[in-house]
């Protein structure tokens, strides 16, 4: 880098973002930076501020304090550039009942100043399996189809950064798989993806990095792998040749039922200790099952801790 060249451009950069609605502090100073090309997850319970944060990034809501930039463009002072860089799939299944799918996508292109965008619109419709519905009125589409149109609308102007706010809420399994395949492809092609979801297994599978929000603050921000290693434990399911767990292991017990015990362990060291203790007491293991850490566990622990 030459002296004077600007520092690295983030896909999204938020600096001390606050949002107050009267007495309610919806966002209480959120800072985060999402690199270009990342698949980023934004998790948190209802009311944590996820949608507020997304709305501020998209310029739908104005922050009470702080700054947000999309690909280096400030969302307030340079909104024309920041909005061109951003595609947003809103949470609600909204549509304009006056128009067909193709009209909807043409209008959306036009709002971004793109007049002859039909080739790309056709391609997006093809990937989202919307071609057969191109001339159908939006009103006549099923919920899943409407969701696809929302995704298509977010992509008409080929934004490098795509934000999906609960895109799979109420969507059937088949469509969800198809949708993720498509989003993954966009990510591989270099798009930055920001995702909020209630399905934690989806976030775990897809996201490189995750931020957890609670009551308007970021309470965890790390790579998905680190979060799983740091916060999550293991669940051990054990069946012994006796009805009681060896002394000293009760603290880790979640449930017990006729010689079947479910234990929560902090890490693999704890597993060693459990097995050692079982051997010491002379008990025999009939069955053993070890469940790897999952994001739901991490999520619950993080939320409990804060």
């Amino acid at each position, binding site marked *: 880098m030459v002296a004077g060249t600007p520092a690295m451009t983030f896909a999204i950069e938020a600096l001390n973002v606050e949002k107050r609605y009267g007495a309610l502090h919806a966002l209480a100073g959120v800072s985060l930076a999402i690199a270009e090309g990342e698949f980023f997850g934004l998790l948190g319970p209802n009311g944590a501020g996820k949608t507020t944060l997304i709305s501020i990034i998209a310029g739908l809501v104005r922050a009470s304090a702080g700054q947000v930039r999309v690909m280096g463009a400030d969302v307030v002072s340079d909104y024309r550039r920041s909005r061109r860089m951003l595609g947003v799939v809103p949470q609600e299944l909204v549509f304009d009942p*006056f128009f067909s799918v193709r009209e909807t996508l043409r209008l959306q292109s036009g*709002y971004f100043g793109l007049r002859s965008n039909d080739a790309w619109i056709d391609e997006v419709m093809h990937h989202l399996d919307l071609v057969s519905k191109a001339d159908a009125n939006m009103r006549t589409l099923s919920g899943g189809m409407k969701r696809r149109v929302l995704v298509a609308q977010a992509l008409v102007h080929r934004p490098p950064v795509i934000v999906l706010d609960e895109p799979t809420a109420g969507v059937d399994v088949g469509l969800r798989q198809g949708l993720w395949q498509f989003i993954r492809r966009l990510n591989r092609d270099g798009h930055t993806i920001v995702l909020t979801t209630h399905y934690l297994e989806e976030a775990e599978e897809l996201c490189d990095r995750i931020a957890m929000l609670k009551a308007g603050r970021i309470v965890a921000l790390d790579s998905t792998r680190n979060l799983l290693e740091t916060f999550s434990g293991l669940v051990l399911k054990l069946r012994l040749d006796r009805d009681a767990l060896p002394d000293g292991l009760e603290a880790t017990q979640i449930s017990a039922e006729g010689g079947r015990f479910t234990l929560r362990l902090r890490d693999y060291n704890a597993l060693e200790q459990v097995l050692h203790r079982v051997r010491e007491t002379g008990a025999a293991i009939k069955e053993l099952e070890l469940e790897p850490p999952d994001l739901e566990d991490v999520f619950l622990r993080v939320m409990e801790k804060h």
Partner: protein
Amino acid sequence: MGGFPTLLYKELLRFWKVSFQTVAAPVLTALLYLVVFAYALGDRVRMFEQVSYAQFLVPGLVMMSVLQNAFANSSSSLIQSKVSGNLVFMMLPPISYLEFFGAYVLASMVRGLVVGTGVLLVTVWFVDLHVAAPAWVLLFALLGAAILGALGLIAGIWADRFEQIAAFQNFVILPLTFLSGVFYSIHSLPALWQAASHLNPFFYMIDGFRFGFFGVSDFPPRASLAVVAVSFALLSSACLLLLRSGYKLRQ
């Protein structure tokens, strides 16, 4: 080029797709007014010399239709988008508040003028009408439609529910148009009501518009034009300030 042409096109397409309801219906309503009032009262009432009551009534009905439909267009379009949530599609792209204002107000003007032209075309079959000063007709029609388009936009920004728009229409727009001299010359009113009519901005729009047809009016047309132009400037500024602040649209 920004999103303005497309937003304007969308607003035009929106009312044109349901033109039976947005154009044909108000034309029929105006025709019914003409039939009922002109034929029931026609021979007994005369507002201006040389002008029959039916002739007097037509410009009033045309302008009333222009104003009411311009208001209905921007207000109903915006409240529909707000209530159904699809306003987000217009808030996400880089459309400036000036473009937003321009598209909604222009589309309202087009709807108002299309309906007004429709009323005129239908009523001239029944009433012999000459236009003394076409430029005045056009000027007042354009300004009147723009004012009501901007007012409709303000109402749409402010309202959260359909009933609030309906209330605005029934308790503000309708009384102001009915009491503005659509159906009578304010000279036929008692002094107190004559004075009150001068406080109604709609009176100047109708009176100036009518001057364009007959070359006679209750109030000097240049003064009416000034009132109408100032009203437009004030309402547009208020509307632009609301849009720029993001009031109720960008929370």
